[in-house]
């Protein structure tokens, strides 16, 4: 199956797409992996594995939406870091509230969310979610992968994926509830 998927990158457009992604995100992927894993060899493993995942999903990678592509690459690197060295990721830094504000001012991405305070707090809450939950939730809700695909990508059991997504959603609901109080 995998051989079939990989041989499917015969399409010159897909190859070009892949090359462009690599050129564009190579630095970010390495910085992220190095920061998290602190070792060149582990980082190489994480980046090459994440890149392999991108290659396998190349048909559904949206290159015309830079934000989504960045988020996708970031999620896959994060996932590989968790797979390689789970304990290294537990103390991952929380997103600073100022960074959230700067992002809002750049992209006005909270326009659909009525209260900016709620949005900021909810985003801050997400940064506190266990990383495995965040990866599963992103792949499922943002990028539309199925439970089975997520289980394959995250090297987890189907039941684990389902429970991470279910619990993740419950936690996000509770963040929102708390922030609205």
């Amino acid at each position: 199956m995998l051989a079939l998927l990989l041989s499917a990158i015969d399409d010159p457009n897909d190859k070009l797409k892949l090359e462009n992604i690599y050129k564009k995100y190579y630095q970010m992927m390495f910085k992220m992996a190095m920061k998290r894993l602190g070792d060149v060899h582990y980082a190489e493993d994480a980046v090459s594995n994440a890149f392999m995942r991108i290659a396998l999903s190349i048909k559904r990678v949206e290159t015309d939406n830079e934000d989504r592509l960045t988020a996708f690459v970031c999620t896959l690197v994060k996932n590989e870091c968790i797979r390689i060295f789970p304990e290294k990721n537990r103390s991952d830094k929380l997103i600073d509230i100022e960074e959230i504000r700067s992002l809002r001012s750049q992209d006005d991405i909270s326009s659909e969310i009525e209260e900016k305070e709620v949005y900021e707090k909810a985003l801050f809450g997400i940064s506190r979610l266990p990383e495995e939950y965040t990866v599963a939730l992103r792949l499922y809700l943002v990028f539309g992968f199925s439970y089975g695909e997520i289980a394959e990508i995250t090297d987890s059991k189907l039941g684990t994926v389902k429970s991470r997504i279910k619990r993740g959603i419950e936690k996000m609901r509770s963040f929102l509830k708390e922030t609205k109080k």
Partner: protein
Amino acid sequence: MMTLKEKKLFSKLLLDSALLEARSFNEEPEVSLDHSPLYIAKINGIFKGENEKPRSLKLSPKVLLIAAIIIALIITAVACAPIIRRFIVRFIDGNYEVIPTPEENEVVRQRIDDIYTLTIIPDGFFEVEPQPVLSDMHTVRLWMKGEENIVLAQSVWNGGAWNIDGERTYTKIICNGIDVYYSEEFGYYDVSWIYDGYLFTITCPSSYEISYIERMIGGVKIK
């Protein structure tokens, strides 16, 4: 169940959290690394479409357990190779052929050099003598008690396969370190084994316990 509004909101929050995370690395200094040949080969392989599935460094307990079982099976198979091989039987024309173990093939004979006899016999049985030696390849000794009898057949073992009746069910026991096969039919046991270059068969009433038969086997000695 999530509402559409909820789904939209959560997607946006998750996407934004990923963007924040990605952008947090913008300020990090550029990475300038001399990559390992393995990494370069891997990346080139991905572009050529000939790489393999991302490998996991994490071994789950389940995988470790399966690996341990496989290793244990291999070790057992190596340690008990003759026993394992003993179970290799071929079904030919209604008969099974039991493949002999290397130990059983260690001694092969062309003729009977020593005649064996039973030294442990149930009370009341007496040996019917003289039993003619059938040939220099086979001998039979007979003990009787009323209508019951016990037979010890001794044949030269010259290697090759060992035929057993395919319609019978044989049970294997290990007696004094020797593989012994027995079956029961018409009130009699048929017990066979190979030892010292001979194929022995004891036929005796099945009213006796197998433990007693084992003692009889242990008591088969040169006359």
